[in-house]
């Protein structure tokens, strides 16, 4: 399946047979990757395909378990960021490494300040001169005395690039650089990339936008499940082929979906919602007795939808109706109406890890179960026992600390917590993240049980096979909008990914 374009010359930098594992996950499996001067190498893949891990290995943030690095044909070691810097590798991650209340020049030369005659005193004039020269090179008319805090995201991105260039970067990694940029800003960035290319800088460019891939790419590599699936030249492939290369992830699905009863009344109705968190005209609905998927790339606004429904983010316009009531009271009202938000980061947002199973499970339902205001420990333990049995949680008992349970059992504790609060609408954000295969099937069986009992479920997931297996229908998000809705019969990895990608 793998076809490599034959390299005509020695690459500037080459990774061979890179493997990297994290506990429970094989993030990279025998990946080879080459970078040529003056070339833009596009890196494609679904969420979790291993793109970021590969780039972190390249820049020394992670150490590879296996594999070789070659610089101009010579074998070298990359054990840390200092090694990567020696070979002129600079990465511009999506999170910026800028200091808000220092000016542009100070940021560009952070840690490499120019020395003046006096000890400790920096040569500010010299730094501004050099910063000016770099900004001019990039065609930026910004004043180098401007505080970074006063710059927009696009300009901050440009300053990151300027910072990389000032370090004489020969290899520049850009991780979805246009995600936060407007069209005009994107144009400016592309002009800059063309200029860098002409200067012989090699670039690795991670993107989810097909138009960019073909506009900029000199070489395209697709990763999937931590493996290199293919490398192509842009002339010899098309968007449709690339999408088909990206899908087909091996997600273990030993889960059989039960037959579901016809859906019931409309439980959640989101109409034309706009938020500061980036949602644009989002409309969707969920009925009792159905599991609705919410697919899309990371950053497409899926979590923001859940937060808006739960009342955690303010709506600028539009309405959220839950069980026919307009939601305007924030999370406490949402909870009172029977909404449960089960967040992605269970450990920080969903559970108090050092507390007992009982403490965690009882938390959300305290008001309902102990209406008098007095907590009766024995009754609490009894309720917890019932939930442990019902959800089949593997624990020594209500008094065990939640932190020692497995991921799947922790997730069940979170679900139990909301069951106990009589929740009827469940918002799941990546419910199977960090959960092993067997437990996944159990979680899905639990979701099935929930909807059979008349609850409604909105499930955010990056695992397309899971969405297809579990959901009755799915919405696909793209750039804060609902890009489309797919019925059960229409759902394939290809159709979902095509809707979720730009211009695919």
């Amino acid at each position, binding site marked *: 399946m793998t076809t490599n374009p034959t390299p005509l010359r020695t690459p500037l930098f080459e990774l061979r047979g890179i493997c990297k594992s994290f506990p429970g996950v094989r993030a990279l499996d025998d990946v080879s990757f080459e970078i040529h001067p003056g070339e833009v190498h596009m890196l494609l893949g679904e969420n979790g395909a291993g793109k970021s891990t590969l780039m972190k290995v390249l820049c020394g943030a992670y150490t590879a378990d296996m594999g070789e690095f070659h610089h101009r044909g010579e074998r070298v070691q990359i054990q840390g*960021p*200092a090694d990567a810097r020696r070979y002129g590798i600079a990465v511009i991650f999506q999170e*910026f*490494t*800028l*200091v*808000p*209340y*220092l000016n542009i020049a*100070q940021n560009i030369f*952070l*840690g*490499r*300040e120019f020395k003046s005659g006096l000890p*400790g*005193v*920096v040569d*500010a004039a010299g730094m501004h001169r050099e910063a000016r020269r770099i900004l001019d090179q990039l065609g*930026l*008319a*910004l*004043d180098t*005395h*401007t*505080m970074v*805090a*006063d*710059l*927009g*995201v*696009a*300009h901050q991105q440009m300053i990151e690039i300027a910072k990389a260039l000032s370090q004489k970067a020969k290899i520049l990694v850009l991780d979805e650089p246009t995600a936060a940029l407007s069209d*005009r800003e994107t144009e*400016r960035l592309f002009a800059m990339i063309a200029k860098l290319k002409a200067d012989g800088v090699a670039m690795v460019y991670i993107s989810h936008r097909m138009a960019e891939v073909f506009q900029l790419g000199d070489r395209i590599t697709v990763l999937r499940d931590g493996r290199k699936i293919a490398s192509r030249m842009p002339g010899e492939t098309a968007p449709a082929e690339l999408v088909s290369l990206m899908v087909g992830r091996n997600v273990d699905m030993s889960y059989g979906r039960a037959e579901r009863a016809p859906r019931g009344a409309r439980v959640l109705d989101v109409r034309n919602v706009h938020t500061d968190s980036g949602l644009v005209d989002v409309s969707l609905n969920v009925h009792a007795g159905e599991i609705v998927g919410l697919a899309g790339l990371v950053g497409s606004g899926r979590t923001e939808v859940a937060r808006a429904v739960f009342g955690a983010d303010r709506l600028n316009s539009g309405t959220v109706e839950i069980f026919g009531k307009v939601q305007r009271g924030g999370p406490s009202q949402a909870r009172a109406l029977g909404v449960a938000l089960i967040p992605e980061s269970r450990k920080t947002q969903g559970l108090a890890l050092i507390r007992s199973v009982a403490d965690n499970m009882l938390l959300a339902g305290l008001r309902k179960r102990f209406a008098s205001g007095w907590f009766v420990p024995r009754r609490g333990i009894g309720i917890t026992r019932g939930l442990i049995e019902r959800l089949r949680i593997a624990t020594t008992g209500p008094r065990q600390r939640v932190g020692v349970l497995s991921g799947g059992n922790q997730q069940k504790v979170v679900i139990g917590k909301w069951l106990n609060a009589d929740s009827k609408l469940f918002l799941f954000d990546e419910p199977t993240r960090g959960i092993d295969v067997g437990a996944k099937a159990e979680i899905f069986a639990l979701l099935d049980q929930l909807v059979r009992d008349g609850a409604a479920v909105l499930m955010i997931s990056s695992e397309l096979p899971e969405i297809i297996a579990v959901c009755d229908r799915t919405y696909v998000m793209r750039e804060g909008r609902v890009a489309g809705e797919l019925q059960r019969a229409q759902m394939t990895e290809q159709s979902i990914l095509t809707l979720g990608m730009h211009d695919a």
Partner: protein
Amino acid sequence: MHDALTATPSRNLMERLKRAGSGAGAAVVLLALVLVFALSSSNFLTVDNLVNIGLQSTILMLLALPMTLIILSEGLDLSMGAVLTLCNVVLALVAVKTGGLAFALAAALAVGLAFGLLNGTLVAALGIPPFVATLGTLGAAQGLALVVTDGQSVVGIPESLQQMSSGRWFAFVPAPIAIAVLAYVAIHLLLYKTRFGNYVFALGGNREALTLAGVKTRSYLVAVYALGGLMAGLAALLLTARINSGHPTAAIGMEFDAIAAVAVGGTSFERGKGWVFGTVLGVLAVGVLRNGLNLLSVPSSVQVSSIGVLVIVALLIDAFRGGRR
């Protein structure tokens, strides 16, 4: 509107004020206080009284200046008042014993520096939250001050030390004010002209970025706290001269005034946002408030509350101006 063509910011004073971190609140508060006290007490706007305010503000200035840097680095030093107290009694004891100034000052500076280094090490190397670490050293310094004095005042301060309080530099400037002004100039230059100063902003603004830039973040963090201790040692010189003794509770609680002055001055506790001149305004606001309330014979217990109110008012003014996030 974030565009290369539109974003060519002017560098005039207003722009700087705005950018420097909403320091206008401090200026407004200071002016308002001066106005109120000038109208309510005929003794307020006299040369003697204004010089008096300056003198009373000098010790606080020496604490608030390094406190600004500590807070800019997203830290806090609760031990400053106690460390100043300990330095005060150490300085007094050594001065009485040796009859001279040099050894006494050196001892006070050494004790201050030691505590500053201890604070910095606890915070930077051991990762103890600044609030907890400096609360611990507060107790330690306070206890030590009581132990070395046996709870008694230290009297019999030599003449040469009293000169520090009553003497004039450059013919007419009272020595404490001269020292405070020099300290301001030094800290200003340190913060805005040196590598160290850049890193102070980065420690609070984006520590990760500083680490990624290959800077030994921890050493700089230790240095920030060490500077605080050292300045407390210097402040002990002025304090001892002023009260003409060493006293084991001389400056207890003064960190509260220092933190208040920094906050009033418009320095934020997050993201490395702030400016050192704002702290000067904040120190003067605290000084004017205390002095004015004294003139109006308001009891000192009420004065403490009034400083709390001052902090809240200054922050509210900035919040209404949209300066704070």
